[in-house]
């Protein structure tokens, strides 16, 4: 994948707090998950502390040490509660 942005998906409580479920997020250079969560919190202070949130990149669970690249699909959510 490539591009100059990432697609960000918000779920459940996170989507309620951001008021959106999907947005394109400009990203020209790779960034770590932890760094990106800082940017997310700057944009949506109501998510603080954002470091508590879980990430999936391209539909796989990832740690915050992951590298997010332009073109990625990034999902943000609280711990899952299915079953």
């Amino acid at each position, binding site marked *: 994948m490539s591009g100059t942005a990432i697609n960000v998906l918000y779920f459940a409580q996170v989507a309620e707090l951001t008021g959106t479920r999907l947005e394109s997020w400009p990203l020209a250079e790779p960034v770590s998950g932890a760094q990106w969560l800082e940017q997310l919190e700057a944009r949506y202070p109501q998510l603080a502390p954002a470091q508590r949130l879980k990430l*999936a990149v391209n*539909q796989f669970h990832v740690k915050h040490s992951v590298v997010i690249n332009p073109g990625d699909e990034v*999902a943000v959510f609280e711990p899952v509660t299915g079953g």
Partner: protein
Amino acid sequence: MVIVQTEDFNAAELTAALRKRHAGQAGALVTFTGYVRDYTEGQGTHTLFLEHYPGMCEREITDICQQAIERWQVPEPTVVHRVGELHNGEQIVYVGVASAHRGDAFRACEFIIDALKTRAPFWKRETLASGERFWVQQRESDAEKTAQWAHDTPNNAKESS
């Protein structure tokens, strides 16, 4: 077979189909069915809304089933999970596992539902009779159970058939 759907499911039909897929091989069949219950004691859950991440959900559950197949002697399991609005007493999830060895069927079935609860991207929102709404929090015990499967060796997991 992994299905995520809004419609209710017929556990008996799912079990019959699972039997048919593995006819002759499996003398043991274990099923788990999860139901909406009164999560908040004394409050009475009015409705439960299940949100999910389409695509990733199916992939995660398929991956969980594949892990079960590699770890125990079980052919392809059946998992059906509902999403959307559900009411008190309704079925949420079905896991069916056949095996020639009953211990394997029990272990694989429990592993799948435990893993699903901590890995599959579903989120439950509860609405009480009072109208109060909140997102259900993951239980620590669920995370602990999933962690335990990683540590279980064939000896202490009773994996012998």
